[in-house]
């Protein structure tokens, strides 16, 4: 039985309207499944707005009907017209670029439908940001702050890097929390559950962003449900960019919601600190072979023509765009290749201002915003025969969508392949160690 405070009782009685009532009813059902005894206030939320492909199972012209059936899981139509006033709410990626639809062979009609979904959310109080990297636009929960997010990597980052408190939940539950302002006080929202459960000894060299990606998969794959690893190794030179790659891949390779990095994350001044006096339930050793296995599981073998090269998962920050420009200067992308970088539209504006967009376009590439290939799906992907990504998450996601070759490489190898119009064995990791 969940204990309710006065605000929650008022919502449940319908005194704040049917929408908030339904959302709290759903949160209570969720709390009962988990066995949570109370709720906590959510003040940061990322929600999943747009005409996403999985919503197509409910053919309807009205965003409110689709929202009610799919996100609220009710048969009645409950308009999505408000959110929780104390919550900072941004939108995650949508299936459309912020400005264009033609480069993705999406119809104008679909682009308009997506815009209607976004407008519905904007009117309800969601800031339309369109990114899986909400921290790039200032969405940063602090230590102890309760958050919800529809981006799994951000769940791990929020808990691990910022010491904020969040669970993976799901797309529906993120909406429920953003609207009623509550989530079950369970899992990472409870201080004592944040202790490390497993010790990970990293014996491999982990330097490049690709290697941090591989480390996430190598750790995530064998992790049991609800494990919290504390990771120990020689991590001199680690940056936020490295950690976000680790957290993103760890999240998609397991159901891990939090990790500690010995000496770097705030709840792990040491391995003992992260364990909080508890004995670890297990130990993992990650060596070079484990990273190699992680790579081979995602990158297809062989060589061949490629016509699709995508960078930026999670969405690139401005420094990553600058580094692409530095490497790309003077080179020309093969005319057969669609070469693209993905980011959030305010970062794109910075790229325009700094001349980076001009350099990328002069080389034959594009900067796109607010989405990613995996979210656009078949309508875009079916036009291409060979894919290259600088992200394990994106490569893995596309491998489930196509039988065509999918390759995974570091940024420079991705650019080399885009220039050549061909994937070669020399692009594979490790290139030169």
């Amino acid at each position, binding site marked *: 039985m969940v204990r309710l405070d006065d605000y929650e009782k008022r919502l449940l009685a319908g005194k704040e309207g049917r929408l908030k009532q339904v959302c709290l009813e759903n949160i209570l*059902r969720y709390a009962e499944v988990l066995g949570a005894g109370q709720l906590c206030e959510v003040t940061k939320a990322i929600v999943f707005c747009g005409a996403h492909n*999985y919503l197509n199972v409910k053919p309807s012209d009205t965003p409110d009907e689709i929202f009610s059936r799919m996100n609220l899981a009710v048969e009645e139509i409950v308009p999505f017209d408000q959110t929780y006033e104390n919550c900072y709410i941004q939108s995650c990626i949508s299936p459309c670029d912020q400005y264009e639809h033609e480069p993705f062979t999406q119809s104008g009609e679909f682009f308009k439908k997506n815009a209607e979904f976004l407008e519905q959310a904007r009117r309800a109080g969601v800031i339309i940001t369109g990114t899986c990297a909400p921290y790039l636009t200032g969405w940063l929960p602090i230590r102890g702050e309760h958050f919800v997010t529809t*981006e799994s990597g951000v769940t791990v980052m929020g808990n691990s890097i910022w010491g904020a408190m969040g669970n*993976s939940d*799901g797309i529906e539950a993120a909406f429920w929390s953003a609207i009623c302002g509550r989530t079950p006080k369970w899992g990472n929202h409870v201080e004592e559950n944040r202790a490390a459960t497993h010790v990970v000894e990293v014996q491999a060299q982990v330097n490049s962003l690709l290697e941090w990606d591989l480390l996430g998969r190598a750790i995530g794959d064998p992790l*049991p*449900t*609800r494990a919290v690893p504390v990771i120990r190794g020689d991590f001199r030179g680690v940056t936020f960019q490295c950690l976000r790659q680790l957290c993103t891949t760890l*999240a998609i390779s397991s*159901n891990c919601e939090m990790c500690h990095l010995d000496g770097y994350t705030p709840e792990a001044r040491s391995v003992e600190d992260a364990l909080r006096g508890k004995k670890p339930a297990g130990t993992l050793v990650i060596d070079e072979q484990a990273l190699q296995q992680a790579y081979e599981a995602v990158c297809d073998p062989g060589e061949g023509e490629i016509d699709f090269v995508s960078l930026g998962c999670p969405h690139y920050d401005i420094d990553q765009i600058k580094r692409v420009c530095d490497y790309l200067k003077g080179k020309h992308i093969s005319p057969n290749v669609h070469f693209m970088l993905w980011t959030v539209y305010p970062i794109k504006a910075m790229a325009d201002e700094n001349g980076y967009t001009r350099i990328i376009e002069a080389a034959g590439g594009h900067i796109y915003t607010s989405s990613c290939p995996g979210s656009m799906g078949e309508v875009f992907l079916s036009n291409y025969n060979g894919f290259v990504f600088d992200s394990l998450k994106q490569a893995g996601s596309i491998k489930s969508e196509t039988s065509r070759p999918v390759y995974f490489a570091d940024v420079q190898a991705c650019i080399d392949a885009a220039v050549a119009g061909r994937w070669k064995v020399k692009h594979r990791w490790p290139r030169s160690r």
Partner: protein
Amino acid sequence: MIPGIVEGQALVCPKSITGWGGIDPKTGIIKEYENVNRGKSIKGKILVMPGSKGSNGWSCYFGAARVSGAAPLGWIFTRIDSSAGVAAAVLQIPTVVDFPEDRDPCRLIKSGDRVRLNGRSGKVEILEAAGSEDESG
């Protein structure tokens, strides 16, 4: 747990099913490229898995399968986690969770076994072990 009693054929996913694109919500067919059950459908099955995996877009694919009539009949999670909790709350199908370490359903139940689960009492029974012809999913 979600109350209710159901009987059906088990589909065991020892490494779960990944979120975001792991299944086709219109048919319930598993699409995940490295899933041992790729090509099989979750529709009408008793799904047995350790917990959720991958994207926070996990429950929504099962929720979409519910809307299109391709949902599983029941759910068995070795250990409940937040994504699995949301999915159970959305689907409202009989669900049993949190098994003792020596009673891991992913090891004890085989795909194709006929299983009865009682979401109120938490009891899971194997009524009939799978013959090899029953394992096609």
